[in-house]
């Protein structure tokens, strides 16, 4: 035996010990779970009682683990099958997603469903969605939902008045100043908190943030800088180029548009804007405690725990304009009036939301929420089957693996849940031919396409008739989705469900191909590269489906999917190089304007790069702007139907599916309410109990 020889037996012992410990804890844990369930039956019957835990030490998990040592009788092997039926973690909802998709907890900064999912559980808006309805509202921090009938929307629909629910308390309570005196108005909801939050939303105007949604109806412009230019009368490079007076004037103009009046908050709109309530209901319009945001808060050691935010004055707002994510005082801090308090956000690992016991709506939430991330599908599936996770993310591609659990009754599947997301193909009718990787030779010679290939309506129609919806629906998206009728989502007001859409028709395909480019295309054929982001399966497969249709007509018509780096595609779509591109739009708010404008308006995100025929574009722009301010619902609907008709006749876009999702949760999860207006789950509804 060598000098190191002693190490091996020691190591072996260690391994055995650990394995032994593994077994032991197994027994303990399962007993533990037995304990938990025996108490949980009483707990769930009287859910409000069980969750009155004030001090951290009475955390239930601490309790159960300390009872570990008392019993260890049942053999470990039996319990593994039995454990499927017990409710694990009876007072916590464990959700395992692929990632923690939070950018920031600042409602005026973040602009994605992932951040919104946390924000709207912690903070609240003036009004909120009523159950699963996306167009009916209930009062939240406002005591009434403004309507024409109750007079809170003015006759000219330019003024919206919200009576504030005075005295609603914020999670963090009152804030003290340096001398230890409580700052008046802090910790409680006041009309100033509401106006401050809205001013802040407008004035921070982050590039790529949600701010434009409030800027558009209030200022009638697309950015705060535009307002400055309007006041000063000159165009400037950046906001900092504006004079101090102009900066002051911007802020004052915003404050004049949104102000408090007694216990009310008044919004004055620039022009009538029918979707305004949809803007107010979004998480970006969450109400903050002004005094708390302003204050610098120190932790026990005297270090800065929370930075000081904007103090609401017109002289300093520009310092908070277009912030970097880490500069926001609210990046990882949240203080709201909602059913949940933010306990901790461990970045990409976990978010823990604790029940707000003093929730003003009467009933506090039933379950704490632990939102975790695991990128491994196998891990998530196993956690679900072991009961360690209550809700998991299951990508379309892997849903067949979870169906057995659904059949067994362990997992409940919710199907066909509408989402505010739609997919479509756009044509760029005049691409930028410089260094273009997609158009081959750049000429109509069978080895590429000319830059203005899609300016011929017959080509566009041919592409529409090459698409096979049936195959796409059943195979590619696994039955998740319904056909999008036009540029407007079918769940949204203004969509015409009877509008024709393009679907495979080989005769028409041939007919249009023969007509296109005065028959030249039919002779020469074409070769077009369709880009997709590495890993973007749906795009590749859709292209292949279309390619197959073209190939049946004649192999001269070549449609070739090719993968590119995401960064490369970002560049090429912005420089207008991609002729035929797959796009998706997730609505910001539930109104046809939020669909029509980005997709079809010449300033919209997509049409901007589509180079639609000027005559048709002018027609589209006109309809979109008229429909935005149209208050007569019938007329408004007619306008949107017209828009949809033009889109079809001119084959401006080829619509694909509206994503309807499936959601999977353990069958003990009760009370799920789906609303496509929610960024994600609204945990307040949930409860855990055997069905």
């Amino acid at each position, binding site marked *: 035996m060598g000098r190191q020889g002693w190490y091996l037996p020691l190591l072996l012992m260690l391994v055995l010990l650990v394995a032994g410990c*593994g077994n032991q804890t197994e027994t303990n844990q399962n007993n533990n779970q037995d304990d938990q369930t025996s108490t949980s039956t009483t707990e769930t019957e009287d859910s409000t009682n069980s969750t009155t835990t004030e001090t951290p030490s009475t955390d239930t998990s601490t309790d159960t683990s300390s009872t570990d040592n008392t019993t260890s009788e049942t053999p470990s092997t039996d319990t593994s099958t039995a454990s499927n039926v017990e409710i694990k973690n009876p007072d916590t909802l464990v959700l395992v997603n692929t990632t923690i998709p939070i950018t920031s907890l600042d409602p005026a900064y973040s602009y994605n469903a992932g951040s919104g999912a946390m924000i709207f559980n912690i903070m609240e808006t003036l009004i909120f969605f009523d159950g699963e309805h996306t167009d009916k509202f209930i009062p939240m921090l406002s005591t009434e939902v403004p309507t024409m009938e109750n007079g809170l929307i003015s006759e000219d629909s330019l003024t919206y008045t919200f009576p504030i629910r005075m005295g609603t308390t914020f999670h963090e309570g009152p804030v003290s100043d340096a001398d230890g005196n409580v700052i008046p108005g802090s910790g409680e909801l006041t009309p100033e908190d509401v106006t401050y939050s809205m001013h802040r939303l407008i004035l921070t105007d982050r590039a790529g943030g949600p701010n434009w949604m409030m800027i558009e109806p209030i200022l009638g412009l697309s950015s705060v800088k535009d307002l400055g230019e309007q006041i000063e009368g000159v165009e400037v490079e950046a906001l900092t180029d504006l004079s101090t007076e102009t900066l002051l004037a911007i802020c004052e103009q915003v404050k004049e548009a949104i102000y408090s009046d007694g216990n009310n908050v008044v919004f004055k709109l620039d022009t009538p804007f029918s979707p305004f309530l949809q803007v107010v209901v979004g998480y970006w319009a969450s109400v903050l405690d002004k005094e708390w945001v302003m204050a610098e808060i120190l932790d026990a050691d005297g270090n800065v725990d929370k930075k000081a935010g904007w103090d609401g004055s017109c002289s300093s707002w520009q310092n908070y304009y277009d912030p970097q994510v880490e500069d926001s005082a609210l990046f990882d801090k949240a203080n709201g009036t909602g059913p949940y308090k933010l306990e901790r956000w461990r970045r990409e690992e976990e978010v823990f939301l604790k029940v707000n016991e003093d929730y003003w709506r009467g009933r506090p939430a039933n379950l704490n929420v632990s939102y975790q991330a695991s990128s491994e599908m196998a891990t998530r599936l196993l956690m679900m089957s072991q009961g360690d996770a209550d809700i998991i993310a299951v990508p379309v591609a892997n849903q067949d693996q979870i169906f057995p659990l659904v059949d067994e009754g362990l997992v409940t599947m919710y199907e066909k849940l509408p989402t505010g997301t739609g997919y479509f193909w756009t044509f760029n009718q005049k691409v930028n031919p410089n260094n273009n990787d997609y158009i081959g030779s750049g000429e109509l010679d069978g080895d590429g396409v000319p830059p203005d290939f899609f300016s011929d309506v017959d080509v566009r129609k041919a592409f529409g008739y090459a698409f096979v919806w049936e195959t796409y629906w059943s195979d590619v998206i696994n039955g998740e989705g319904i056909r999008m009728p036009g540029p407007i989502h079918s769940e949204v007001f203004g969509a015409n469900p009877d509008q024709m859409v393009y679907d495979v028709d080989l005769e028409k395909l041939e007919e249009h191909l023969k007509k296109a480019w005065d028959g030249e295309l039919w002779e020469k054929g074409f070769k077009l590269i369709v880009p997709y982001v590495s890993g973007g399966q749906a795009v590749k497969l859709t292209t292949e489906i279309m390619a197959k249709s073209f190939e049946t007509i004649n192999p001269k018509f070549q449609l070739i999917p090719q993968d590119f780096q995401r960064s490369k595609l970002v560049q090429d779509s912005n420089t207008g190089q991609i002729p035929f591109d797959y796009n998706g739009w997730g609505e910001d708010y539930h109104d046809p304007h939020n669909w029509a404008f980005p997709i079809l308006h010449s300033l919209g995100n997509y049409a901007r790069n589509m180079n639609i025929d000027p005559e048709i574009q002018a027609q589209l722009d006109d309809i979109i702007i008229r429909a935005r301010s149209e208050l007569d619902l019938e007329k408004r609907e007619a306008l949107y139907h017209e828009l949809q008709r033009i889109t079809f006749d001119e084959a401006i876009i080829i619509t694909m599916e509206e994503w309807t999702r499936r959601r999977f949760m353990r069958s003990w999860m009760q009370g799920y309410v789906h609303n496509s207006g929610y960024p994600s789950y609204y945990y307040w509804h949930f409860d855990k109990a055997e069905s």
Partner: protein
Amino acid sequence: MLAYIVRRLALLPAMWLAVTLMIFLMLEPLGPYQKLALFLDNNPEMAVPANKLSEEQLQRVFDKHGLNDPFYVQYGKWLSEVLRFNFGWSTTAQAPVMEALISRLPATIELTMLSIGPLIFLAIWMGVKSAVHQNRWIDHATRFIAITGFSLPSFVFAIFVLVIFYGWLDWFPPGRLSLWADQVVFSDSFTRFTGMNLVDTLLNGRFDIFVDAIRHLVLPVISLSYLSWAALLRVTRSSMLETLKQDYITTARAKGLTETSVIHKHARRNALIPVLTLSGFVIVGLLTGVFIIETIFNYRGVGFWAVDAALSFDVPAVIGITLFTATLIVLANLIVDIFYTVVDPRVRYD
């Protein structure tokens, strides 16, 4: 010797410069639009597509991050920030790079420290054993295990053990702690001294959580050490065989020294020279293993973060992690070089 060490350490800053310059140079061919992807949210499901930005907003992002600046200006700006210990913001970690690195390091240290001990001692001991008993059953058995280990892709091995020990037997779950333990560890009543769960739980006197932490460590440690262990063992064995055939060993035997004395006093020491060279390789292997193993076991350490960052184009994080690992490896190799002189006095660095 001291001069040699100082000389080697003095090269570190030069290397930092070279590494970062290289990464910046690699980024250079990307235009400002492509670099834009650096500042978009990293999750494609939630990303704000760049065409959701208006032209004015795009320009604002370009200006803010200096994307239109020439290469040396961008690099200079970045460098001046780094000199103030600001490595930038990691979009994947949602924190400053340094902070994120420091918070993830304990997890990885815990994992590698637990793996490296058994790895090195077991490998050397068994390698020597195997060589001494060449072509006996113990040699065949060791070689068989080693070769199997070395030939099996780490990710396949890792997922297999996960399915067996978690999915089927439910002994060793993935992650770092169970949910209940997580809640305790991150509550106010628990002090996190080091961030290493095994140490912290003992200091807090929570043996139940200590056991829980061990259960979560077993599979990653086995997967991580098993794979490098095989390589190290093979090299120890072959180098030991080589040494045993040297003439001076024959001489030693001829002198009438006992076999134990020959092997441990004379042969092993020399056999360890190639092994030492390999230990640098083993360290790199461990680091590489950490990337894959942490990803598969959902074990949130530096490796998990590195893969996430690289796949999401989180360049500040990639630079930070690269610099860190690079420094680590330079130091490790320096130590290996110093060890050379200890093991083989004929090797000098002057």
